[in-house]
């Protein structure tokens, strides 16, 4: 029952986006999140749209996966659109329902917000769909390196992330095993009233906690035995390579910013 959960969202494929350095992707997504707010008219929104859809097309990620990523936020988007629809009182009235009026400004604003959210989600999920979690970790560690000066434990943070990633499948297997063992003793995890169901998870969670503690202890010992002593003086096997395509990616982000500034009203 648990085996069909795909770890992370990574979809292996051979595309330009997949081959890019995680750092350039992270920076690009970061920039995109900021500049989405620059768009304020049809022209600038179309520009963002073309950029997003173009990137998605280059990534070779099946369209169905992208849609799946959008599904959970659909209701939030709808809610925001409706909110704007009724709350904005600009422009001529399009529809008078008696208890509320819908203005043209509201409709435009609602649609813009919806697009903005869709673009944001689409591009950020493209990041996780085309980059393995461990690559994202490496990229983050590298980008955040300057923060070490401010005593932010960048290396420890990255190590923690990578160890968690490594143990997710192990803990999933373990969860399944304990669930089965408790089911064999008559525990019910999927039926009954909600309070009862929450209570039913105690026999699952406590053994999981205990084993996670034991694993952490063993792991710390094994790491120490293999000469782990923090991030200082450490070399890395994983190599991040900044290539032409990465510089080009940042360059095109720059072009996008300039274009947005020009086209916005």
């Amino acid at each position, binding site marked *: 029952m648990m*085996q*069909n959960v795909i770890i992370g969202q990574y979809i292996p494929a051979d595309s330009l986006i997949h081959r890019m350095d995680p750092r350039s992707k992270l920076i690009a997504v970061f920039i995109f999140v900021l500049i989405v707010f620059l768009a304020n008219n049809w022209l600038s929104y179309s520009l963002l749209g073309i950029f997003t859809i173009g990137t998605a097309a280059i990534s070779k990620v099946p369209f169905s996966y992208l849609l799946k990523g959008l599904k959970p936020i659909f209701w939030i988007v709808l809610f925001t659109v409706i909110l704007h629809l009724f709350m904005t009182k600009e422009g001529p009235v399009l529809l008078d329902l008696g208890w509320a009026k819908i203005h043209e400004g509201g409709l435009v604003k609602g649609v813009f917000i919806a697009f903005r959210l869709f673009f944001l989600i689409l591009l950020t999920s493209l990041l996780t769909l085309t980059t393995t979690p461990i690559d994202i970790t490496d990229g983050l560690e590298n980008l955040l390196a300057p923060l070490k000066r401010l005593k932010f434990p960048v290396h420890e943070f990255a190590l923690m992330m990578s160890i968690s990633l490594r143990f997710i499948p192990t803990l999933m297997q*373990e969860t399944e*095993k*304990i669930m*089965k*063992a*408790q*089911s*064999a*003793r*008559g*525990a*019910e995890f*999927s*039926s009954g009233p909600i309070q009862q169901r929450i209570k039913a998870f*105690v*026999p699952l969670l*406590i*053994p999981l906690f*205990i*084993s996670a503690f034991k694993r952490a202890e063993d792991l710390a010992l094994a790491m120490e035995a293999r000469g782990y002593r923090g991030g200082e003086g450490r070399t890395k096997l994983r190599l991040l390579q900044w290539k032409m395509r990465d510089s080009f990616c940042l360059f095109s982000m720059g072009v996008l910013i300039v274009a947005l500034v020009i086209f916005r009203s």
Partner: protein
Amino acid sequence: MELSTEQVSHLYNKGTPMERRALYDVSIKIPSGSFYAIIGHTGSGKSTLIQHLNGLLKPTSGSVYAGETTIRSDEKAKRLRDVRKRVGMVFQYPEHQLFEETIEKDICFGPRNFGASEQKAKRKAKETLQLVGLNEEFLQRSPFELSGGQMRRVAIAGVLAMEPDVLILDEPTAGLDPSGQKEMMELFATLREQKKITIILVTHSMEDAARYAEQIVVMARGSIYMQGKPAEIFQQKEKLHEIGLDVPEAIQFIKALEKQFNIKLPKAFTVEEVVEVVRSILKVGTTP
């Protein structure tokens, strides 16, 4: 209670890219009160098979019969509960499933889930704890202060307290030291004597299979590879070698003796039996 499977196949992750077939048309019949051993390598389908026998897994195709209950792929969960109560399952490293503050509470978990009154559950806890060789004083202690072997006994008591008709044991001696392993196996043999329950033992130890089981099922690649009495199974050394399994040392040894002394010797599975055989050929006056 009799357990049987008819043409049972099982697919994990059906309909996903990770689909994997773990069982192919397995038909097996385990009569009430018998002692079965299932042997085979990791990944041979042993664990998948036993999880069908108590309704933790449902067959992708085929049927499982547990007493009067039939389990098919479209079975409702309600009826599986009854099967789970009557077919107790001790997983590998069962001590990992302990979670309560006291041993008593932990043992009561199973019986209470299956509707026993608190009083009855407590009585059962006391009884089964003794059965697994721990005295009453342990009842109010935390299971987490015990040694590994003791914790395992408590976990087994937790299953026994449900009063199952069948006890399935998935490598119950894994990770114990040799004396602990021996004690554990003796415990099951005694339980069977006293309680007359069916025992199904999944094991990597050919010695245990030969010594304790009446019937051995050898699994390989998701199918039943061989089935029969220990003596029959372990006679076919080559066939076992083909799938990388060995015959018990006692049998190997008797074979080697027969060859060296050029005589026919009786079967022996345990050290004691082997010693008897050896004595018979060492006795002065007998001619080889």
